[in-house]
């Protein structure tokens, strides 16, 4: 009996020892996003496909270690996102956490990553707080944020004479951030905000909220929401003729939204995006490759997922380690230059690159499926994102 106990103690010890060795056997990327609900087309499974494409194009290995991707659906619940991230880090030795759409979940995962010292990259979530009030030494906010959208679309609409705003806002972290950031830009440029109404996330009927907007007599209806909510709001605005008395400003519009609504319903809409598949030869090549796999053109978020993954793997290679502090140091000093963007990651974790102010084409201007945008202006990265003077992040002082 004693012998058996001793033996199991030994085997237990061996198990622990091998467990520790296992730590360096893999580079493990954990991707948590909305896979099934209103944001699933914006990133979702297509985001996982883009990340896997980047891993495959990198050769499937970095520093001799195989790269593995694991994914989960957070169902737009911050607690699910945080506990899944915690579980992967604690039990599966995750090396990098990849956050998806929904800022509520993004902010929750950033906290877990900071506590557990893991690199956290995030594309889908937009709240500017990720690299401002709630910035962390381990967060890289890669694609876009609410400040860039506000300065891009908000600034352009005010410049065109749309000074009087009413907001239709999704009632959670992202909507609040987008409304606040846009209202700030509108006021700075001499405009006014006459009111706003908050709608629950994933609302299906917008008619009531839209009538309230119409009664405000504002010129501009700012849509501080995204995905399915933006789609249903634009559709209802057309049905109630609100697009005749007010001008719609979609503050976060994705190419999948335009695809779903059709050009007839969206023609002329101004929007800010970080990327479009139809910008140049390189972007078209990625677009085609992605389309062949998924039968849809990539959104800017999905393109950013590919780019961010490659950037991370290059940093791991340069650091010769998966240690978060060493990788973050590399990330913050390496220049990024690929089909997605040219930019750098600032001390606050913000990846700074040019954004694009686009206008949706009319049906006659569009020459092929998914050809929806014409470029109005290129927005320089160091102007369109939070500036050093505006930043409240302690890491960038």
């Amino acid at each position, binding site marked *: 009996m004693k012998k058996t106990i001793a033996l199991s103690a030994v085997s237990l010890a061996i198990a622990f020892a091998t467990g520790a060795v296992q730590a360096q056997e893999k580079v493990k990327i954990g991707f948590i996003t909305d896979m*099934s*609900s*209103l944001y*699933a*087309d914006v990133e*979702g499974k297509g985001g996982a496909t883009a990340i896997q494409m980047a891993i495959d194009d990198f050769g499937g290995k970095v520093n001799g270690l195989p790269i593995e991707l694991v994914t989960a659906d957070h169902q737009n619940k911050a607690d699910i996102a945080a506990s899944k991230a915690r579980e992967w880090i604690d039990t599966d030795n995750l090396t990098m956490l990849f956050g998806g759409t929904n800022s509520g979940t993004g902010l929750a995962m950033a906290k877990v990553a900071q506590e557990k010292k893991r690199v956290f990259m995030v594309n889908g979530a937009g709240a500017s707080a990720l690299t401002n009030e709630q910035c962390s030494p381990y967060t890289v906010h890669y694609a876009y944020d609410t400040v860039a959208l506000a300065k891009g679309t908000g600034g352009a609409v005010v410049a065109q004479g749309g000074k009087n705003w009413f907001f239709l806002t999704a*009632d959670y972290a992202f909507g609040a951030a987008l409304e606040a950031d846009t209202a700030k830009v509108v006021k700075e440029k001499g405009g006014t905000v006459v009111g706003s*109404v*908050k*709608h*629950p996330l*994933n*609302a*299906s*009927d917008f*008619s*009531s*909220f839209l*009538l*309230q907007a119409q*009664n405000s007599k504002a010129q501009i209806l700012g849509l501080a929401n995204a*995905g*399915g909510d933006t*789609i*249903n709001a634009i*559709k*209802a605005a057309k*049905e*109630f*003729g609100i697009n005749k008395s007010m001008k719609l400003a979609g503050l976060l519009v994705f190419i*999948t*939204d335009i*695809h*779903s*609504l*059709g050009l007839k*319903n969206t023609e002329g809409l101004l929007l800010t995006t970080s990327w479009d598949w139809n910008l140049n030869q390189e972007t078209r090549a990625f677009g085609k490759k992605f389309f062949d796999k998924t039968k*849809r053109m990539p959104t800017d978020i999905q393109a950013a997922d590919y780019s961010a993954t490659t950037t991370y793997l290059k940093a791991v290679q340069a650091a010769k380690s998966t240690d978060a502090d060493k990788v973050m140091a590399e990330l913050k000093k390496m220049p990024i230059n690929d089909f997605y963007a040219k930019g750098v990651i600032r001390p606050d974790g913000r990846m700074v690159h040019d954004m694009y102010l686009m206008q949706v084409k009319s049906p006659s201007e569009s020459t092929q499926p998914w050809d929806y945008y014409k470029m109005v202006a290129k927005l320089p990265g160091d102007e369109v994102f939070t500036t050093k003077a505006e930043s409240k992040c302690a890491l960038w002082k």
Partner: protein
Amino acid sequence: MQISLPALLSQLLLGLVNGSFYAILSLGLAVIFGLLNVINFAHGALFMLGAVLTWMAMNYFDVNYWVMLAVAPVIVGLFGIVIERLLLRWIYKLDHLYGLLLTLGLTLLIEGVFRSIYGVSGLAYDTPDALASATDLGFMILPNYRAWVVVASLVVCFATWFVIEKTRLGAYLRAGTENPRLVEAFGVNVPLMITLTYGFGVALAAFAGVLAAPVIQVSPLMGQNLIIVVFAVVVIGGMGSIMGAILTGLGLGVIEGLTKVFYPEASSTVVFVIMVIVLLIRPAGLFGKEK
């Protein structure tokens, strides 16, 4: 907070439009629960199926809205009959929970199939030409289509109520609910009646789906978003009560509409708050009978 009378009237009207959807969906659930004792969780998915079929008919076969208003409920009704014959009839003797689980599984399956084909952003369906314009009511511009939704669903709801409460066929149905064995002893084919009732209940869901197609984006998630509220409506109205389901549906649509004006943040929860209050005061629901 200042709300003008015209603004209030227009919000009441919009509430009634949403209430019409609640009424017609909760009516189907109430009919099914009344006779089959099954909590039909697949109702939302079948509502979605009605809308998607309408979109598919228009895009692939050029079949218009008016035809689908009749055809989609028939197709979905037949699909419902297949579900009942193949799956549901095995679980009538078991606890309610099994019916709930089975129909929830069906929901996930149906929604999953369409999600993988069409994604979640949805498909645009245009309002039929005859109803595409809007009427100026003085206090608001009401799209004609929304007025049509209210009229069509009220007609269908009250016709259903009439058949069940006032005709001989309805009397068989109600008797079947009370005591199926005794009714069967009188020579009525109860299993057939049950099958047809389920088919009819889900046809109602599909009818609502066709009505909804031009109003909200046709998407695999459209039923999921609505069905939870509709369940709350049925609980508030009282399980199995036909008139209760209709009136509660309309009433809650209006209350939800008013909440969107006075405290929009609570508009997605107000129905559940009412549900809690009703369950505390009248556990059988507003129109339900204690068993």
